């Protein structure tokens, strides 16, 4: 079985400061991990993915995430937040044994202060 825990339901940062969104996962197999972003009243867009290649993954819009197997974590970071980063972020896990299904975390709401 697989599951995802996003440790913060809400993160508030000032524009220009770093953003950290924390995600821990549990998986019986070697998982693939994703971060999706959902802007208000929009669909979900893939930010980045980890699929057992490099543990530091770069995504769109300056985001990156590091896969740490020993800590079962996949935290998302950005060095400098922009107002357009205000959105809902979902950490997602997929296991090779159950290829069809992605399991979503509960989401982290990011607000960016001017």
């Amino acid at each position, binding site marked *: 079985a697989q599951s995802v825990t996003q440790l913060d339901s809400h993160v508030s940062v000032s524009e220009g400061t770093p953003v950290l969104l924390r995600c821990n996962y549990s998986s019986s197999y070697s998982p*693939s991990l*994703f971060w*999706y972003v*959902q802007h208000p*009243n*929009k*669909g*979900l*867009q*893939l930010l980045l*993915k980890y*699929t057992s290649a490099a543990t530091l993954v770069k995504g769109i819009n300056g985001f990156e995430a590091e896969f740490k197997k020993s800590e079962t974590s996949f935290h998302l970071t950005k060095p400098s937040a922009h107002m357009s980063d205000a959105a*809902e972020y*979902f950490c*997602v896990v*997929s*296991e*090779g044994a159950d*290829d*069809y*299904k*992605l399991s*979503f975390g*509960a*989401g982290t*709401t990011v607000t960016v202060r001017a």
Partner: protein
Amino acid sequence: DTAVSQTPKYLVTQMGNDKSIKCEQNLGHDTMYWYKQDSKKFLKIMFSYNNKELIINETVPNRFSPKSPDKAHLNLHINSLELGDSAVYFCASSRLGQSFNYGYTFGSGTRLTVV
């Protein structure tokens, strides 16, 4: 544009009515999904079809019936709508065996409000 498209974008209806949400993808994917996002933004899979065959059917009331006329379409029909059905419904697609590496492509969602 290559995409997953859902219609309608918004749907407001009375309790007891029957309604459908349509989904189409032109990405050449062979697997399609319906997810429900509740008021707390939690996303939960409802159904998945691969080449018109049902492969995932989570614990969903029988009032929800997916229909896949071909592998590019997956529609969701809901009978006897209830207040608790109010949510955002997302359609998604992937290529069989590749969601592990590539994730899904999502539609923009249908916001269903039952009054």
